């Protein structure tokens, strides 16, 4: 079996052995695709019932990082590949800025590839995507918050995604699960380019976050009424919004492009895995507006069936095979890293983000131990903007509310306005807040 996590003795401060590991299969693209002002990052936050004490938070982080050697890392450069190396000590916690996901430069990532922030009652963790995905990040956030509450005198049991901080990390948490479960046949990657929403960029890189908070009962009820999942429903609403925007901006139907939504799929449920690293694949359900006007019900039906066809273990295995086969070609393996970077960046810039209008990442229902739920009011999941399209959407459900976080680097809230007013039209009233200036 191919070793996916390595440890070696590395000279370090205090002589402590620093663990290092290769990037997992999905993570390899992220350092190569970076730009001067952009890196692929995402954020998870927990809002507690009391204001955060920075000293206690720092102490909790110092304890928690030892439990997560695959997350408390920095990016290092090898001759042929990047690799992750454990950070010798936890980064200092920082006060938040006026907008989330402030630029994480490559130099910062090479010192520490994640950061912990606080503001009023909220703890936020921002991750470079090469470390982990939303589900892995959620485990880290839950454990950090649990340790914080424990240090504040609240006894939190280790279940519902909260790990024991004193336990040793298991091999299964550190493995690159992409190296298993691939099929003999690789899936094709050819897809039509999607419509891209454009707008006037914020001049100083400000990121606008608009959060919609809606009762989960309402949205689940509506999804059940249509016989679809919540993700399918939200996907269909987004497609409807993008079709409307494209109709306004591109008058000639012949010039319309496909409207597709990139939906990350958590593979841990499909292929049993405890990995805390990246283990997601994306599918892009959508419609082609050139074929005619779609009703909302038609969009729902199409998305529902597309997800049904794609979301099988066999299809996912074929996609995994396509990805892992690419990194196993010897000619590519022995290519120096700087040439690999040029090639991967070229591919990413050409086709990487062309196949979808937006990413909709739904972490689903998040549960916490009952003792912790009493102290955690709310959870949020915010994706960073992509390199070329200005919007992204992160969703999760906690207690009886669904939190939909839109982020954009443009001034106009075109998509958000259409989305929430469409939900209103469907009978779902969302309370909206933002960091607008």
């Amino acid at each position, binding site marked *: 079996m191919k070793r996916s996590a390595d440890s070696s003795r590395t000279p370090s401060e205090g002589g402590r052995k620093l663990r290092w590991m290769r990037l997992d299969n999905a993570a390899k693209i992220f350092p190569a695709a970076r730009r001067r002002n952009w890196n692929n990052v995402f954020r998870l936050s927990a809002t507690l019932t009391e204001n955060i004490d920075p000293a206690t938070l720092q102490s909790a982080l110092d304890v928690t990082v030892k439990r997560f050697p695959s997350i408390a890392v920095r990016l290092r450069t090898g001759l042929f590949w990047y690799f992750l190396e454990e950070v010798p000590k936890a980064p200092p916690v920082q006060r938040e800025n006026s907008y989330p996901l402030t630029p994480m430069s490559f130099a910062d990532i090479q010192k520490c590839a994640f950061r912990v922030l606080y503001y009023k009652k909220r703890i936020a963790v921002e991750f470079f995507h090469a470390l982990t995905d939303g589900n892995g990040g959620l485990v880290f956030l839950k454990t950090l918050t649990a340790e914080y509450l424990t240090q504040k005198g609240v006894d939190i049991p280790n279940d519902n995604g909260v790990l024991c901080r004193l336990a040793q990390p298991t091999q299964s948490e550190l493995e690159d699960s992409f190296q298993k479960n691939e099929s003999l046949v690789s899936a094709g990657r050819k897809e039509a380019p999607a419509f891209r929403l454009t707008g006037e960029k914020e001049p100083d890189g400000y990121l606008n*976050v608009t959060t919609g908070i809606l009762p989960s009962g309402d949205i689940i009820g509506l999804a059940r009424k249509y016989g679809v999942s919540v993700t399918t429903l939200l996907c269909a609403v987004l497609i409807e919004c993008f079709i409307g925007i494209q109709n306004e901006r591109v008058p000639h139907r012949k010039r319309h492009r496909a409207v597709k939504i990139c939906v990350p799929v958590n593979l841990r449920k499909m292929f049993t895995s405890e990995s805390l690293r990246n283990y997601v694949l994306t599918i892009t359900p959508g419609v082609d507006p050139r074929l005619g006007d779609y009703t909302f019900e038609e969009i729902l039906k199409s998305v529902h069936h597309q997800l049904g066809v794609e979301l099988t273990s066999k299809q996912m295995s074929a996609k995994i095979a396509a990805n892992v086969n690419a990194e196993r070609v010897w000619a590519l393996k022995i290519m120096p890293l700087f040439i690999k970077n040029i090639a991967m960046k070229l591919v990413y810039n050409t086709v990487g983000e062309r196949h979808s209008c937006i990413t909709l990442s739904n972490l689903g229902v998040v549960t916490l131990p009952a003792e912790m739920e009493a102290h955690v009011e709310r959870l949020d999941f915010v994706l960073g903007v992509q390199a070329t399209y200005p919007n992204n959407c992160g969703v999760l459900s906690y207690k009886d509310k669904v939190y939909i976080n839109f982020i954009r680097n443009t001034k106009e809230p075109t998509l*958000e306005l259409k989305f929430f*007013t469409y939900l*209103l039209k469907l009978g779902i009233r969302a309370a909206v*807040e933002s960091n*607008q200036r």
Partner: protein
Amino acid sequence: MYCVKCGVELRESETKCPLCKTAVYHPDIPVDPAAAEAAAVFPPSTPQPHAKVSHKGILFILTFCFAIPVIILFLCDYNFNGGITWSGYAVGALIFCYAVIVLPIWFHRPNPVIFVPTSFAAAALYLLYISEATGGGWFMSFAFWVVLWAAAASTAIVALVRYVRRGYLFIAGGALISAGGYCVLIEYLVNRAFGVGDILTWSLYPLTAGVLLGIMLIVIALVPVLRESLHKRFFI
């Protein structure tokens, strides 16, 4: 609170709707900015000065880009020929391009009424150099008047467009007539300076075309009904 325009519910942190930017309004509940700020989801934004590209930096780089080939050309010419021979022409062209392209950038708001004649003056100087260097002696008998007429006509057009800001059909008509006359001037000067011929031949065609088109535009400008009718048929 609800947005009065799009109807979405607004959290207490919002003083205007984040979706449609409508100010929050309720006839019975006054909006309290202090409460909204206290409920803000992120710290307030401090405006960051937008980093502007240094004007002087660009000028320095551009000047450097022109200076390097000038120096190289002079050095090569001096090295091979012991003096300035062919490089004068090339360097002259570079200096002319610098005067036309880069010189206006030195000023915050370059006025074309000043820089159009300046560019023609630079062209005249370059032609003077070529005339003297080749021993042609045609500058005062030909090039000077050609450049002078072109400079005067261009400056007049630019000045009218910039300051009068109306009567564009009159200006275009005048420009066409002037262009026709310019061709006549060129042929006359060519005949006189180089002894090519005695009578005007080819320049009568552009003169006729320029005058006819110019008069047509002036007539259209003078007759509003005609102008409206043509606009209806030919709008894009």
